[in-house]
């Protein structure tokens, strides 16, 4: 029993590198494409400590995230690999690794210990990290919406946004810092004591906030959904004596008049009105898909108002699962002649359908 569980864990472990490679390494670390080595290191340190399996016992999502972060760092921290990745993507990297005769995806724990020099970043407690860890204070998270229409979400897109924010720079002089509230007791009379709080501070070099503007590349992957978050590490508000918060862009799917599809999860829905004639004898039509392909509909026989036709695998791409797609559903309505038939035509129709059995 325990053995089979171990096996399945091992199996999952083998799968990880493959799953991980489908991701954007920069996005995984919450970085923009032009990130410096220092930024990459910093982002990895933060995230790796946060998601380390020792700190998230039994949390599979955290373990998976840890593996993802590690693979991203493994590539981006290596100048050669990063260059290949920037130029040729994951595929190029795989080819390179094949040529070098070794598989990618080192053991996440090895990468972690290499980074932290084998030491324990959770302190020296040894009792499962019970020791209080010094949590670095961070500036506020900045949240804003990124609005995307269905075509952008179907094809994926890349946007260059401008992030203009305050950053902390050294300034002349000193300032009070690391202030703590301390209790003091003072004798105010015989046997009478007064307890009061004082602030004790240290002197630090002065800092100032300076505006800095940079471009951030937002990569929107096909199949992203409303409410999904794109995180940019330390692009939020600054904090003196702490780190920048993050910038989070929240995906909002917006409708535009040009796009007639409706989305429901991974499925697309399309309303199509056909004529009574087409409803009776069949028709051939083509729906223009979001990527400009024509999806052909060849229907013989009778189509009833309200009929729904399912076209397999013509829906939205499924986020982060290459090649998988939802379905398309065509909802039919039927338009009728705009004036009444003449007596002759009415007789013809009556004769035509005299032996037909009808149903709803």
């Amino acid at each position, binding site marked *: 029993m325990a053995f089979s569980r171990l096996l399945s864990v091992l199996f999952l472990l083998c799968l990880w590198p493959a799953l991980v490679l489908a991701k954007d390494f920069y996005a995984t670390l919450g970085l923009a494409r032009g990130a410096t080595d220092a930024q990459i290191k910093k982002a990895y340190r933060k995230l790796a400590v946060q998601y380390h399996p020792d700190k998230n016992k039994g949390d599979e999502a955290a373990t998976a995230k840890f593996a993802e972060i590690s693979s991203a760092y493994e590539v981006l921290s290596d100048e050669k690999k990063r260059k290949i990745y920037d130029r040729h993507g994951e595929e190029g990297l795989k080819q390179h690794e094949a040529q070098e005769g070794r598989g990618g995806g080192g053991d996440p724990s090895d990468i972690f210990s290499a980074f932290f020099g084998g030491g324990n970043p959770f302190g020296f407690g040894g009792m499962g990290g019970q020791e209080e860890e010094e949590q670095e204070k961070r500036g506020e998270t900045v949240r804003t919406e990124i609005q995307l229409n269905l075509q952008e979400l179907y094809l994926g897109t890349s946007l260059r946004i*401008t992030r203009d924010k*305050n950053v902390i720079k050294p300034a002349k002089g000193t300032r009070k810092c690391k202030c703590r509230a301390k209790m003091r007791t003072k004798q105010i009379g015989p046997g009478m004591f007064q307890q009061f709080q004082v602030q004790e501070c240290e002197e630090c070099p002065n800092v100032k906030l300076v505006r800095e503007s940079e471009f951030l590349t937002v990569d929107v992957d096909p199949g992203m959904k409303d409410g999904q978050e794109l995180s940019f590490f330390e692009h939020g508000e600054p904090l003196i004596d702490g780190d920048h918060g993050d910038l989070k862009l929240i995906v909002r799917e917006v409708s535009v008049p040009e796009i007639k599809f409706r989305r429901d999860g991974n499925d697309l829905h399309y309303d199509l009105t056909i004529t009574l004639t087409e409803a009776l004898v069949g028709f051939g*039509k083509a729906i223009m898909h979001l990527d400009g392909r024509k999806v052909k509909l060849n229907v013989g026989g009778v189509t009833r108002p309200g009929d729904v036709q399912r076209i397999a695998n013509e829906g939205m791409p499924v986020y982060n699962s290459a090649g998988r797609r939802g379905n398309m559903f065509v909802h039919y309505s039927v338009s009728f002649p705009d004036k009444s038939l003449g007596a002759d035509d009415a007789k013809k129709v009556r004769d035509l359908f005299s032996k037909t059995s009808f149903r709803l």
Partner: protein
Amino acid sequence: MTFMMLGMLVPFLALLFMGAEASEVIVTCGSSVKLQHDRTKYRLHSHEVQYGSGSGQQSVTGYKDGDDSNDYWIVHGAFRTNCTQGTPIESGTVVRLRHVNTGKWLHSHLHRSPISGNLEVSAYDGGTVEGSDSGDNWEVNLDAGGKWKRDQRVRFKHVDTQHWLHSHDKRFGRPIAGQQEICAVQKKTNDALWFAGEGVYFPEREKPSAYLKTPHEDL
């Protein structure tokens, strides 16, 4: 001859390019910006503190420090209109500003502002569509006309009352000590000048492909 011309052209082009890098970021619909009062440099701010006078709605103040996420406002189209993210904003365009953290709209009306007794400016979400109404409409006014750019001086005229979004050195006491009064005044002065500083600016975007204009056809 050709070389000479090239030699002259290169620095000229470089200048052009640098200029574009430095200042040509435009403010668009869907961008999230901090609006700084031009003279005092205080930032348009809101938070879950109600006015103790006037309408009693959520207060809007001027905030000094540049490290607060309560200073972000998203630019929206006028009441009952949609403005796609990335659409540039020409002088004269009517917009609404939505406070990011509380979701309320920058609003003005005939209540008196708490310190100076001008028109009160509040953050409000009691309107009819998405909590908005015409009292949230502000006209973007640029002396030079054209598209609204980052760091460019801009005024906002409240459409219903024709008063200008204004700030000055009048400051509040507790619980929002040091924050500056924001109000709307009839006179168009330099204290009605603002600029968009820090923010998340979205670029102009491509429209959906032209082929989608024919959503289906007969075969």
